């Protein structure tokens, strides 16, 4: 049924439909509305789940780790500093192969403190062993949570999944969302049946010391599973389409007007809505421009991106995060996808925009296209205010 809802509320509703046995979270802007709504649902008796109030994100992540280890479906959500405070446990969850689902309401990182959107938080945890998928709008954010549980709990996968949605832009945005009906959710998402669990009748230990004789194989197994998940995403996407009638294709990337394009922007998340506007406007003027939207950032679909961009002469990668002192995070991956290949773009320029919630406007996107010339640039900041860059502190 179509509803006009706030993004956060839509997420709470879909989590309710997934019936997690344990929910634990600590409030942090802009994630708060999601868990606030879930706490309300539990206290109203609409959702039979244990909502564990904790004193920090480190504890919230530990509670869902423990919950998942006992063999129940679990949920948590966080942002920014909260995600960083969870970091140690985030790596543990993946290492123990526990299919935790987390919403990351993407927000900038301190200092200076900033509560607005960019994607630095989740991107900084790209090596944690979590599958990361990025939503463009609230419909996707809702659907991706269903897909997240289905994929993570798949016995071939058994990995945690982070659904990333841009803070405020999506979490606090009102949109029409086709909310999945409970009977269809139940059809698509079977009851969680764990491969292993903590059980006093059949005791096991998890996450114990693995000395040099054992450790590497544990990490190698995650790496191989990640690579295989590229195929599972496509498979689950078609099953999702069969039940709900929404086609996310291979769930790796979305190609928008890329077929004959001579300039393509690569981006991730809600900014792609704005980019599509500019693409339409430029196409109306006869300019051959397109967008390649990355949906799955981990696993990163190198082969799929090679296919999509191999005949495009110029590519602009738009990052909403930086790797200070190096090339921007998505740009690195795109360049790597073409290294040593026969075909590929002549120019792959990298742009950084929208840090700390600075609006990426239609004009910002036009500026990216203007700066995408024969001369390659790296980590070129868009909409920078040079007047704020003061030299006097250094004197």
């Amino acid at each position, binding site marked *: 049924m179509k509803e006009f809802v706030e993004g956060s509320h839509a997420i709470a509703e879909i989590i309710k439909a997934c019936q997690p046995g344990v929910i634990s979270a600590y409030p942090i802007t802009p994630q708060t509305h999601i868990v606030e709504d879930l706490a309300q649902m539990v206290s109203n008796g609409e959702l039979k789940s244990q909502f564990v109030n904790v004193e920090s994100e480190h504890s919230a992540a530990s509670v869902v780790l423990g919950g998942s280890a006992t063999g129940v479906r679990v949920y948590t959500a966080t942002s920014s500093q909260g995600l960083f405070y969870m970091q140690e446990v985030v790596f543990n969850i993946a290492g*123990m*192969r526990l299919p935790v689902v987390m919403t990351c309401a993407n927000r900038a990182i301190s200092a200076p403190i900033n509560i607005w959107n960019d994607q630095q938080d989740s991107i900084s945890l790209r090596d944690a062993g979590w599958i990361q998928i990025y939503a463009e709008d609230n419909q996707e954010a809702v659907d991706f949570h269903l897909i997240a549980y289905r994929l993570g709990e798949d016995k071939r996968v*058994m990995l945690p999944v982070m659904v990333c949605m841009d803070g405020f832009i999506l979490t606090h945005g009102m949109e029409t969302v086709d909310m999945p009906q409970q009977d269809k959710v139940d059809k698509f998402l079977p009851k969680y049946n764990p491969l*292993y669990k903590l059980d006093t009748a059949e*005791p*096991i*230990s*998890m996450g*114990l010391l*693995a*000395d040099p004789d*054992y*450790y590497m*194989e*544990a*990490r*190698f*197994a*995650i790496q*191989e*599973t990640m690579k*295989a998940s590229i195929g599972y995403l496509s498979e689950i996407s078609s099953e999702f389409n069969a039940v709900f009638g929404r086609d996310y294709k291979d769930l790796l990337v979305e190609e928008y007007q890329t077929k004959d394009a001579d300039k393509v922007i690569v981006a991730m998340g809600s900014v792609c809505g704005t980019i599509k506007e500019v693409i339409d406007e430029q196409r109306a003027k006869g300019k051959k421009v397109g967008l390649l939207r990355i949906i799955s950032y981990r696993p990163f679909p190198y082969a799929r991106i090679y296919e999509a961009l191999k005949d495009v002469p110029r590519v602009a990668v738009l990052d909403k995060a930086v790797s200070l002192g190096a090339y921007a995070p998505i740009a690195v991956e795109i360049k790597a996808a073409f290294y040593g290949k026969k075909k590929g773009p002549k120019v792959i320029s990298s742009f950084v925009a929208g840090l700390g919630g600075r609006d990426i406007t239609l004009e910002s996107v036009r500026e990216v296209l203007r700066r995408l010339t024969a001369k390659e640039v790296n980590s070129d900041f868009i909409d920078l205010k040079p007047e704020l860059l003061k030299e006097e502190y250094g004197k």
Partner: protein
Amino acid sequence: MFGPLTVKPSESKGDKTGSWRTLVRPHYLHKNCIACRMCLMICPEGCVKGKEKNAFSVDFTFCKGCGVCADICPKKDIEMVPEESKEGDQ
């Protein structure tokens, strides 16, 4: 794909920690033992066994030679001897 992930009780017995021993090993003198069991309780590997006085022994397949048994013995009835000496063998 899965690597080493979970461990069942007593599975860690596969790790023969006796190979970690380098310089010294415990030698039970069997003179003044009062069977207080403190060496058995404190052993981090749980590799000390025995019930009666002057009848405790160590499983050197697992003993790491840490020496806490000798340290805690109230009767000084355990001493750490060089690894090469015959005295440690029981």
